């Protein structure tokens, strides 16, 4: 990779060279071999920690758990941009959102010449299919994909249909058909946004008193370090909804998180429908699956909800790759930093085709196949209304848009992000190192006009 085309989910130049080599090394051994089918399952607003197999005792996710049991799970997985449209554009182009132009929801369209994965796979011998939520601003998905279902703006109404559409497609396939790239956009647990709208005012009492004993205990990071940047407070701790939530009693926060888990369980069952259909169709052994989410949800951590910021609950997402017979089963990877930008190059690599031009992510195939590869030592996530995050193995550094104030968390000693080190002189060196990494990453960007418009991070 050249200087002008780095892999800025965040790596050094030396590693970029190594990454290019790894991309070549990741191609299948036999070119004559039939290409695998690709199933890309994504949920919406799903924090990586809200999965039973990830240690959450308050949620039941037997179907996601079985996917995890038969695949490789990357625990240090971050949204490229914890907002719907930008995160999805990053998946489907492999490009940073400052470059794709989709820096916010619904406002700035994708750069017209930038290919999406539907076009990419369709031109390379795949039947590209889609069901459910798309939400890439400025790009109609019907020319790129054969659309099985447009889904519905509410997951409670549309997700079952998305699963049924996928099942009927899998049932109708013939073995001689072209390999498929099937992307399934489930909407849950996104309906939690509407739950909050419905419950914004402080409740007098739990409407269902019998549920009191089921509410999860209050979490250790319900509080927050008061040394939050002013820009963050302005964006996320002000406004009428937030003012109402400040008057919530602890049990209402717990009720919110309890409800969030029920939304996760809704979509888990639909994922089960698809996995069953895949097995029933006989394609489970010739289909590689990637499961992830566009971003997480505040879930009441730090007394926040929604997304668009970089606390773990909003930014860290599930990332599972499964291909029975080809990849390890039940492997838990806690060492490698992974980004939503890696979806496109990974899918292409598993298919044995080249990645779209100037892809900023990296293929996970070498990691999945246990091939020696020097991996990135930092990644960057961005959000136009907030700023940029640098994540290294030990720390998370956030530089906020506007006044350029910062947060720094020690992710080994303070996973709950309760202690902002940026304000402390003893960590000035660590902050400076991360600042430098961010500068290096930004120097390699080729921002779109919209990216330039909203990407001025220096205050």
């Amino acid at each position: 990779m050249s200087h002008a085309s780095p892999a800025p989910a965040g790596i050094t130049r030396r590693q970029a060279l190594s990454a290019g080599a790894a991309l070549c090394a990741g191609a299948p051994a036999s070119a004559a071999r039939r290409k695998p089918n690709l199933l890309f399952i994504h949920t919406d607003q799903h924090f990586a920690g809200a999965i039973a197999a990830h240690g959450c005792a308050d949620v039941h996710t037997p179907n996601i758990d079985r996917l995890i049991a038969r695949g490789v799970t990357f625990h240090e997985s971050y949204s490229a941009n914890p907002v719907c449209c930008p995160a999805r554009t990053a998946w489907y182009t492999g490009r940073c959102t400052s470059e794709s132009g989709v820096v916010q929801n619904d406002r700035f369209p994708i750069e017209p010449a930038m290919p999406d994965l539907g076009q990419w796979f369709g031109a390379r011998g795949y039947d590209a299919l889609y069901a459910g939520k798309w939400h890439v601003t400025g790009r109609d998905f019907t020319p790129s994909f054969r659309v099985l279902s447009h889904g519905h703006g509410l997951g409670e109404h549309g997700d079952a249909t998305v699963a049924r559409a996928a099942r009927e497609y899998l049932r109708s396939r013939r073995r001689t058909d072209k390999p498929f790239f099937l992307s399934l956009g489930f909407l849950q647990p996104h309906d939690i946004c509407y739950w909050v709208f419905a419950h914004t005012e402080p409740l007098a009492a739990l409407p269902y008193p019998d549920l009191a004993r089921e509410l999860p205990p209050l979490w250790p990071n319900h509080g927050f370090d008061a040394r939050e940047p002013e820009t963050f407070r302005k964006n996320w701790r002000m406004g009428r909804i937030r003012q109402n939530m400040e008057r919530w009693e602890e049990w209402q926060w717990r009720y919110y998180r309890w409800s969030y888990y029920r939304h996760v369980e809704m979509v888990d069952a639909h994922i089960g429908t698809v996995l069953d259909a895949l097995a029933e169709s006989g394609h489970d052994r010739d289909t590689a699956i990637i499961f992830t989410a566009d971003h997480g949800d505040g879930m009441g951590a730090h007394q926040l909800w929604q997304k668009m910021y970089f606390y773990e609950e909003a930014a860290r997402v599930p990332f599972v790759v499964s291909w029975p017979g080809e990849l390890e089963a039940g492997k838990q990877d806690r060492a490698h930093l992974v980004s939503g930008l890696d979806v496109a190059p990974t899918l292409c690599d598993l298919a044995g085709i080249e990645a779209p031009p100037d892809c900023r992510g990296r293929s996970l195939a070498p990691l999945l196949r246990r091939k020696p590869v020097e991996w990135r030592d930092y990644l960057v996530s961005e959000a136009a209304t907030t700023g940029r995050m640098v994540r290294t193995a030990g720390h998370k550094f956030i530089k906020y848009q506007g006044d350029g104030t910062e947060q720094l968390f020690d992710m080994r000693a303070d996973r709950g992000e309760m202690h902002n080190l940026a304000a402390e002189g003893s960590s000035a060196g660590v902050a400076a190192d991360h600042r430098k990494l961010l500068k290096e990453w930004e120097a390699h960007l080729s921002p779109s006009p919209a990216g330039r418009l909203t990407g001025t991070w220096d205050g």
Partner: protein
Amino acid sequence: MDDPLSMPPAFAYMARRLASLPAPEASPGLGAAWEARYEVHSVHREPLGAWTGGVCGGLRLRRGATAAGRFGLDVGLWLGFPGPQSDRISAQLTCKDDGAGSLLRWRRHSQLASRSAPSLNVPVRDDGGGYSSGRLVRKPGPPLAAPPPLVPGWALFDTLRRLNSPLSFTMLEELDAVRPGQTLRPYRDAEVTMRGRAVRLRGWLQTGPGILPTTWWLHESGVPLLVLAGLRAYVYNPSAAMQEVTP
């Protein structure tokens, strides 16, 4: 009026829909045949604003009389989507007359249809299955373990007509999702107006994994008039529109 802060959030909004609809006549006797239609509503609240929503589908239920300890339940469901597309299901269920309405077997016909883009139409698909000894056998499809009693979600519209004590069960949602650990228990009463007449509703609460607390509001005759889940509501309306599976 009931205290809005202690009621399910969408109750007051959806109760207004009942105001223009007729209350049911006397319920048929236990074990007798009945037929009912429901509007399926999409309902949500705008940020800091009012509740809003509208009809996004229909549900038709036709229960046969009990014979030899079992009864048939004929179901039609359609849901409308942008596109415009629709998801239509027609199903014939055989349930045990055991108080819970537990499932014995079913046959289903599914159809995804698009009016604007016929190429998106999916032909009618048929599947079915049966349930016994804690095992759900699907044809086609792999079998699933499902703790008894396994009650189809649609059968609850019948079960609740005669339920008089809490029920623990596994729900089979739209014949797809198996949701164990469900409980139905008495909730609270409420009063609404239907065509100018005060009508007392008896509430039941369903909770369990995979669903938001769902309240079932029954007319004194036992007929469910309003069902409130998270963003979906069913409203009893004998004239509710339907789109059926069309071969």
